[in-house]
Every structure is written in structure tokens, then in C-alpha cells.
């Protein structure tokens, strides 16, 4: 169709002619997307924080003292074969003992060295790839041959996993709600735009323009509004995030290690998602209101 050019130009012209309406729509969509973005970054940070704690929640499997070297190595292989095990690190008893002794004062160190015997067993430090599977991994570890004892904290894992889930659900809900609100507002804005352009629409209908032809410039308008709002919102979320990071890090660091979540890592996704969301809300918002408008409004009488 050779008219795409004309129709698209019309869409841009609409934007210029209805400057105020366009600015209003962009502002509204921008605000909603910004809130979505902030909710998302908050979610990412909370998840990173939880992951940070989780990664420290390792399973220690101690090997029976009577196991020889080959049997100990076999334990390592068996552990690696368990599902959801991310890494298995061998902690040999000499190194572990040396580390422990370092913390003691010199007298005690000298005394222990005098005894010359290492009371520690060999051990494996196991990290779990999927924290929701923590307990099943623990159970599997317990069944491994030659494992003396397992040290773990299932309760913490359970709590963290539950926390992660609820944070995800709540954020998803908030994000969805905000999107619905944006769509509703966009659709209303377009409705107002259509009303303000009823003269042109009445002429178009009277000369036999097809509904799709009437609709297209409004769709273009909605899409442009979406793109602009999406890009602006990305920028705003970035600025707010960097600001929040710089002002809160020092305060929060007293509570524990702060995960280093860089916005730039998420920026392409956020920008992409925002523009797509913007385009879709713009398009759906406009198409639904246009369809209704075209159905209800007659062209012979113009409402004043």
C-alpha cells in the first residue's frame, strides 16, 4: 500500500496538532512505565540480595574418618552427580585445620601443633543451583556412601525461597496493575483526541474513507506516544536508580553486603520492554477507543 507514508505523516501531524493531548498521554504513560521500572529494579535488587544470602548457605558434607583417599574422591564424584548441585569443592582436613588454627593465639597453636593430630574430617562444600531444591539435595547428600555428617540450614533456605516467591508475585501484580492503568488512560486520551478531531473523522466518513484508513494515523500516534514514553521512562528509571544507589548504599551496607546490581546490565531489556509495552498500550488503547468511536458516532451531526 502506497499510503503508509501519508498515513504515518498524518500520525505525526496529529501529534503536533494535538500537542497538549500528546504531552498529556506521554506524561501519563511515562509515569506508569517509570513506576513499573522502579518496581522492576526493586525486584531485581531484592532478588540479588536474597541470592547473595543464599549463595552463602552451603551444604557441608563431612567424609568418614576411616575412608581412604579413593573412597573420599568417590564421595566427591557422587556428590557432583546429584541434581541441582552447582559446585562441589573439596576441603581437605589439613587446610581446614590450618585455617582454624590461624585464628587461635600462639600458645594454643603451639599446643595443638605439639599434639600433631588433626581431629577434622575431610569435607565437601556443596552449593545448590536451585534454592527451592535445597532440601532434596540435602537428603540426597545424606544418602551418599561414606558421608559422616551433613551440616546445612534448610530453614533459612525455605524462608529465603518463600521470600523470593512472594516478592516476585507482588512485583508482578504491581507491574500488571500499572500496565492495565496505563492502557486505560491511553485509551481515554485517544478517545478525547478522537473527539477533538471529530470534524476530520466526519469528513473522512462522508467521503468514504475506510475505517482502517481513519484508524491508522491514530495508531501511529499511539505508537509514537508509546515509544517516546518508553525511552523517557528508561532514562528516568536509570537516573532515579543511580541516585538511589549512591544515596542509600552507605546506609544499607550496615545491614550486610549490598549486591552490586548495575542498571546498565538491564537497560537494554528495560528500554526494549518499555518501547514494546508502549507500542502495545498505545496501539490497543487507540484501536479499542477508535473502534468504539467509529461504531457509535454518526457523521451527519457533529457534537459541539
Amino acid at each position: 500500500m502506497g499510503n503508509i507514508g501519508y498515513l504515518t505523516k498524518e500520525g505525526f501531524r496529529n501529534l503536533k496538532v494535538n500537542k497538549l493531548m500528546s504531552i498529556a498521554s506521554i506524561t501519563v504513560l511515562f509515569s506508569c512505565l517509570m513506576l513499573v521500572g522502579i518496581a522492576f529494579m526493586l525486584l531485581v535488587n531484592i532478588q540479588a540480595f536474597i541470592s547473595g544470602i543464599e549463595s552463602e548457605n552451603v551444604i557441608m558434607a563431612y567424609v568418614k574418618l576411616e575412608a581412604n583417599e579413593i573412597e573420599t574422591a568417590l564421595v566427591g564424584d557422587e556428590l557432583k552427580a546429584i541434581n541441582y548441585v552447582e559446585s562441589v569443592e573439596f576441603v581437605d582436613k589439613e587446610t581446614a585445620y590450618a585455617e582454624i588454627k590461624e585464628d587461635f593465639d600462639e600458645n594454643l597453636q603451639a599446643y595443638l601443633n605439639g599434639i600433631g593430630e588433626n581431629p577434622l574430617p575431610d569435607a565437601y562444600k556443596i552449593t545448590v543451583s536451585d534454592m527451592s531444591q535445597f532440601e532434596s539435595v540435602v537428603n540426597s547428600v545424606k544418602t551418599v556412601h561414606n558421608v559422616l555428617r551433613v551440616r546445612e540450614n534448610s530453614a533459612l533456605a525455605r524462608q529465603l525461597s518463600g521470600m523470593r516467591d512472594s516478592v516476585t508475585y507482588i512485583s508482578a501484580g504491581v507491574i500488571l496493575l500499572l500496565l492495565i492503568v496505563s492502557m486505560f488512560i491511553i485509551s481515554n486520551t485517544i478517545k478525547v483526541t478522537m473527539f477533538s478531531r471529530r470534524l476530520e473523522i466526519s469528513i473522512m466518513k462522508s467521503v468514504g474513507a475506510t475505517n482502517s484508513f481513519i484508524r491508522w494515523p491514530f495508531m501511529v500516534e499511539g505508537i509514537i506516544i508509546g515509544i517516546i514514553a518508553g525511552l523517557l521512562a528508561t532514562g528516568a528509571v536509570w537516573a532515579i536508580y543511580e541516585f538511589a544507589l549512591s544515596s542509600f548504599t552507605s546506609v544499607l551496607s550496615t545491614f550486610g553486603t549490598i549486591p552490586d546490581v548495575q542498571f546498565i546490565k538491564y537497560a537494554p531489556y528495560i528500554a526494549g520492554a518499555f518501547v514494546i509495552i508502549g507500542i502495545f498500550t498505545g496501539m490497543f488503547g487507540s484501536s479499542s477507543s477508535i473502534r468504539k468511536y467509529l461504531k457509535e458516532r454518526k457523521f451527519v451531526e457533529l457534537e459541539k
Partner: protein
Amino acid sequence: MIEFNNVSKRYDNGTEALSDINIKIEKGEFVFVVGSSGAGKSTFLKLMMREEVPSSGTIVVDGAVLNKMKKREIPKFRRKLGIVFQDFRLIPNMTVFDNVAFAMRVIGTKEKKIRRRVPFVLSLMGLNDKARNFPQELSGGEQQRVALARALANNAEIIIADEPTGNVDPQMSYEIVDLLMRLNEAGTTVIMVTHEHSLVRCFDKRVIILDKGSVVADGGTLIREAATSHINAASEITNEYVVPPEEDYSAYVEDPATAQPDSDFIMMGEEFNADGGEE
């Protein structure tokens, strides 16, 4: 060309706008439709443009049965019509040229064709030197001529003019009807709704008079005179309709002996079709 067979229209709110109307308009006819407000004139027009569907009866326009027409066929049907409104409906932020071009652009006409067609229809309406003006810089009569040019832009077979002289001074009113007449002579069917009896009387054309949703008279001069008095009498009683002050349009009537045949109008349709027609 246009046929109303036993057409009635009752709106959802219960108003019976038209009851059992039978009208037949031939191709190339010029018809005035006269009536007081509430007589059913605008319903008549809306039915003809397929803006409304009759409650009963059938309407046929140019071979198409409007009752049975599918929604998606309406735009194509409307392209056969050139509609002129009382309030001109010109887009204020577009020039005269663009206003006329708009009607062509929105049905997907190529820009090349528009650049040739628009100056032509503007010249027919005597608006060549106004192409770059904006509507608000023009008089009411000129604005209505722009609207008429727009109605002609897509080479309509039927011109439907809804009170085209309603917002125009008497001399311009006469000129507009005169332009419609000339279009009619070039072969276009013209239907003009008006309540200005004195204007109607200047032209010896068919007059359909509507009153309270029925056709009370349909025909030439004699019937028209009778019907006009009928309406005038009716309006005095109901006081709904004030007969406009009688304008003496005879002053504007051209002497047929000196009038020049307008060759532009004759070739109007051909010029457009020479481009390869629509689509």
C-alpha cells in the same frame, strides 16, 4: 438511480421520523427536498447515505440495496456520493487546496492525481486564486464552494447538499445553487435539501416536500406552489417553523440568452476517468 420503497424510519427513542415514503429519483435529475425542521429531511439524507438503516422498506442507490449492504461495503458506496454540509466542514488548519486534497487522500488517491485534480475542481468553483488561503480567510459563500469542490474531488455521481445555503448570504446562495445546476447539466444527480422556498422558486426543478415524515408533494412548479403554501399554513399553526424572509433571487438570475455554456463542466467526468479512474 435512487429509490425509496415504502420506507419508514423509527428511532430507538420512539420518534417516527419517516413513514411509508416512496420516492424515485432518476439519474441526472435535480431535486429540491423541502420541509420544516422535524419534517424528516435529515433522516431522508441519512438513509440515502447509509448512515441509518430504515426500520422497514427498501432503499436502492445506484443499484445497491442499502438495507443489505455490509458494513465494509459502506466506504466504497460513499465514494459515489459528494456530500455538502450546511456548516461547510472545512478543516481550519488546512489550506483550501489541502481541504480538497484531503477527501482524495483519505481514500488512497495517488499524490500525482491529486495535484492535477484539485486545481481543476477549484477552477470549476472559481477558487483558483484561493488555493493557498485558509478557510477562515474566505467568505461563507467561498467556503461553501470549497466544500462543493471537495464533494466533486472524487468525481461523485450524486451530490447531496444538506442546506448548502444555510450559512451564506442571498447572492452567494443563488450562485451556489447555480453551480449545482451546472454540475447537474454536466450529468451529476443533485439532491439539495433546503427550507428556502424563495430560492427554490427561482429554479424550475422537481421539488419534494416533506412534512411530519411524509411526502406531501412531489413534482414541478404547480405542485410546488401549492405545497409551499401548505407548509406555510402548517407552520403558522404549529409555530415551529418560521418562513424565512422572502428574498428576491430574481435579480441574480442570468439571462439565458447571454449565458455561456460552460465547457469545463461538460468535460468534468471525462478528465477524471482519463487518469485511469478510481483504484
